[in-house]
């Protein structure tokens, strides 16, 4: 995950923990990529029994999860234009 130590930093001098080292972040990301690749290709070995045809598309759950989440976040971001008001909106 990206790490922006300069942003909003009003605390004591930076004392990055193990989790905040760029090396760790890279490590976590790579672990995630490898795990994703692993479960994606494991799809060959999954014995699917469900009644819906769409489930049998190779990598359906992976693709659906990824596309669904990207869609969710981008749609929510657009919703902000419509819904977002100042924090004290109801107090004014």
């Amino acid at each position: 995950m990206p790490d922006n130590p300069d942003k909003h930093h009003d605390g004591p001098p930076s004392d990055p923990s193990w989790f905040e080292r760029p090396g760790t972040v890279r490590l976590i990301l790579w672990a995630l990529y490898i795990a994703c690749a692993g479960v994606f290709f494991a799809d060959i070995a999954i014995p699917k029994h469900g009644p819906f045809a769409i489930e049998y598309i190779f990598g359906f759950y992976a693709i659906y999860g990824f596309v669904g989440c990207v869609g969710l976040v981008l749609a929510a971001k657009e919703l902000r234009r419509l819904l977002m008001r100042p924090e004290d909106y109801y107090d004014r």
Partner: protein
Amino acid sequence: MIGELNPGLILIVGALLIPVAPQFLRGVITLVLPIIAAYHLVNLPLGNMGIIPLFGYELVTLRVDRLSFIFGLIFLLAAFMAAIYALHVKGWVEAMTSQMYAGSAVGAVFAGDLVTLFVFWEITAITSVFLIWARRTESAFNTGMRYLVIQVGSGVILLAGVMLHAHATDSIAFDQIGKITLDSDWSAVPIATWLILLSFGIKAAFPLLHNWLQDAYPEATVSGTVWLSAFTTKLAIYALARGFAGSDLLVPIGATMTAFPIFYAVIENDLRRVLAYSLNNQLGFMVVGVGIGTELAISGAAAHAFCHIIYKALLFMSMGAVLYRVGTVKGSELGGLHKSMPWTTVFCIIGAASISAFPLFSGFVSKSLIISAAMKEGYFWTWLILLFASAGVFHHSGIKIPYFAFFAHDSGKRCQEAPFNMLLAMAIAAALCIGIGVAPGMLYDILPYDVTYHAYTTEHVLTQLQLLLFSALAFAVLMQTGLYPPELKSTNLDSDWFYRRLGYNIAATLLLMSRETWRGLSRAATAAVSRLERNINRSHNPESVLGRTWPTGLMAFWATVMLGAYLVLLYFR
């Protein structure tokens, strides 16, 4: 007879000791009461007990069956964990009202008739509002008022429904009330059934009836939110499972509930409000289960309520600990807290993994039942939405909550770890989340129906991991590319806008209009009166024709003229 006592009454009556007890004993009482009640519950036989005749009806104050048992048990467990979490709270108001609140929820679950249900239903409303007011801010007071109006309103609607129902069916038994299917003739469904469904729907936070939840829960005290998260909404799920099982109208309602709150959760800044939105989303899964109504689905709804109460309490506990130590749970102001609160971080991640239904955590073994039931009954679109909502809940509760609170950019905030009692409560909840996830057999044994279900098949585990890991990948990609929306200080409009802003504006406008109308009318009336006065004045004032004084000489002259005229007339006769 103690043997036929509703376990909820143990908490309600026992809580009356709290105000008179010294501070150190108050905590003990709050811990002991749920234990006594649970001991009493597990020793109760199945069946209807505590029957009181009333005006030709029968009040069944204690009904123990497998559906009420599992809900009663988890409510008492939640009360015990929340009591540990709240041990540091001084004073008696929160301690007493929270016990009574838990007690009334337990009481409602074991109510065998609708009148007893109504009584406990209203007590949950009246006692729980104090957990919001105890925050002692003006905004919490206003929120509490809105919450109380809606909660008591739900009770009033319930009462109206119950009276009509009793009149029509000559029974107040709380059994299946209606089965409203999508293809049935809705006009044939009695109004009483709709009213009772509406009342349950308000407490279950159905779409558009939901916003009291996101409004109120984040405004309650640190421990108050933990209490609130457990009882009211799950009581409504129980009531729906009891009264409306198999009403497939609930399937699209539940599916909507799983999906739309997660959009709000993504952009919400107050992390306890994010959790309130995801609570709403989890309720959706249970409502779908109730709507499908098969034995597997109802068992899934009960199992999911059981697990959900624990992990949702755990998540609210962890965010409560942050609020307690840092003074805020705004995502925009937090970050890097894993350095100050490592244990809270670990417990929060366990709660997050459970709500996300990671294999080996509790959410996985309960949510699978509902999703499998939807597949089995051929609800294709519902199944797709539930999958999307599962991915989404991982995204906002599983990743966003721990990430923005404990990691992300270092906010520079340094604080103490949470107090010991909070850590202990979180540890118990976390242990239960993992325990149920690893060994779901014990939970499956107490479900309302005997279901043989294997959560840990290769198919379930791998497809779930595909869904979740690729959701995580989506988060990572969006963060790396800077597309992820930053946490911003904001208020997001939701259905409460209709009464907090639109309703308020309409009322204010009506008030202004009626005031202006009154002013206009009174001005016109004043003008009319003064015009009349002016006209009268014109002829009758001292100087005018009819008002002025006349000289007596003139009078004598005219009298003489008249008499003369008479004389002339008489003369000619």
